[in-house]
């Protein structure tokens, strides 16, 4: 109920600004309204709509499901089976059992397949919600897992040879131009204070800025009224780059997550945060 009231207030604030003729002033006003909304969330953390998905994720984590009818409570996120608190802060990391570096979503997908017997191919077919649709089950679980590290700092070591290789791959991908627009991640995210239209762009290869924003994901997006995970965010960037649909759990998505986590080392995790 509380969530709905706050959402209504925010939308009313945003709607009232549509009549302001100057878009830059409007932009500043929008930012102010979102900042007020963030402040309200801080004062009453339970009013964050993303937390509903985190709660849903917790229930999904603890409920016996899948062909094998077991819960995910034996899933090892890196700190031992079933240990969720603080695990997200140390991801991505190398997992010996999978012989692969994995981010939170890729690891949860792996556990759903290995422990619960789900078919991973089915889970990655349409893994992200459309606008207005709630985040899917895997994303809700990822939101819960990330939220269990909220307030902690990014501390993935990423110093094993396998991990360093993945971070280096992420850096190469970050700068790799392709597609009909010649875009790379760095086209938009390699300078401070730039905008697309009125939307500010974080300088993600700069630790100072990466620390501010990377820990916000998974985040509740006001414009699409759902939680968007990091894998979904990367998928969206590749959509904008005019490339095909980025596979959840692919080496590319894991490497970019690892690169961003490395850049954000020491930054605070505040997931699920609130975004435009």
């Amino acid at each position, binding site marked *: 109920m509380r969530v709905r009231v706050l959402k209504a207030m925010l939308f009313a604030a945003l709607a009232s600004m549509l009549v302001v003729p100057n878009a830059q002033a409007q932009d500043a006003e929008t930012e102010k309204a979102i900042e007020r909304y963030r402040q309200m969330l801080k004062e009453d953390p339970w009013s964050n709509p993303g937390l509903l998905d985190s709660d849903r994720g917790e229930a999904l984590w603890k409920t016996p499901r899948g062909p094998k009818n077991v819960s995910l409570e034996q899933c090892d996120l890196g700190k031992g089976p079933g240990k969720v608190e603080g695990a997200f802060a140390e991801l991505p990391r190398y997992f010996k059992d999978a012989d692969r570096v994995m981010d939170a979503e890729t690891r949860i997908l792996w556990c759903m397949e290995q422990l619960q017997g789900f078919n991973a191919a089915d889970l990655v077919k349409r893994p992200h919600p459309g606008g207005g649709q709630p985040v899917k089950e895997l994303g809700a679980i990822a939101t819960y897992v990330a939220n269990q590290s909220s307030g902690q700092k990014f501390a993935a070591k990423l110093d094993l040879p396998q991990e360093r290789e993945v971070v280096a*791959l992420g*850096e*190469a991908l970050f*700068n790799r131009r392709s597609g009909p*627009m*010649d875009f790379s991640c760095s086209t938009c995210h390699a300078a401070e204070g730039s905008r697309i239209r009125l939307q500010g*762009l974080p300088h993600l290869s700069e630790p100072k800025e990466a620390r501010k924003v990377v820990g916000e994901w998974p985040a509740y997006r006001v414009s699409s009224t759902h939680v968007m995970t990091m894998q979904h965010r990367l998928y969206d960037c590749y959509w904008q780059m*005019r490339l*095909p649909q980025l596979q959840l759990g692919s080496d590319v*998505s894991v490497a970019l997550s690892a690169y961003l986590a490395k850049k954000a080392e020491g930054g605070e995790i505040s997931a699920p945060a609130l975004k435009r």
Partner: protein
Amino acid sequence: MKKIPFVLAAAVLASSAVFAQQASVPAEKVDAAIKAAFPGAPEQFIPRLTQDETMKQCSASNNNPSAAVAAEIQKREKASIEYPADGKFIGDWKKGEALAQSGYGLRFSDYPATRANGGNCYACHQISKKEVSFGTLGPSLQQYGKLRNYAEADVKATYEKIYNSHAAFPCSNMPRFGANKVLTIEQIKDAVALLMSPDSPVNKD
């Protein structure tokens, strides 16, 4: 072409060297990861996963190619430019304004295409004064033609920059709208008109 002062460039290199203590990844490995990351991609999207020579050279140098590589890119990209058959570079600025506003086209959600591709110029540039929702990744283009006295040589140069930005600025962030078939020759003429027509709002307002 902006020249980055040597000291700054050295500082950037030094700081990236601290992070990149791991060996850099061979290009074949990056390409293989990309090929595997988009299973089930539609046939027409597959060529987009492969880089052409210019993309490779720009990616490898973080868009800061050596003078020799820059000259090579410039020469190759200039050769890609096709000119209007009628020899006229200036189209309709109103159509130019419309395509500068439109970001439609070429995303996987844009098929089958329902209208012409846009240039999305406002995403990165300030252009007409009345449009205040503009990006800042590229320079402001307000008064573009007026500042150049509408000179004929600049009209042609503007066409070339939009057709293939790398012909003027190797490793520019701007898409090669003509060379990559994002915009048609007619559309590029309309964009030139928006920038170079004396009666365009870019110059008039």
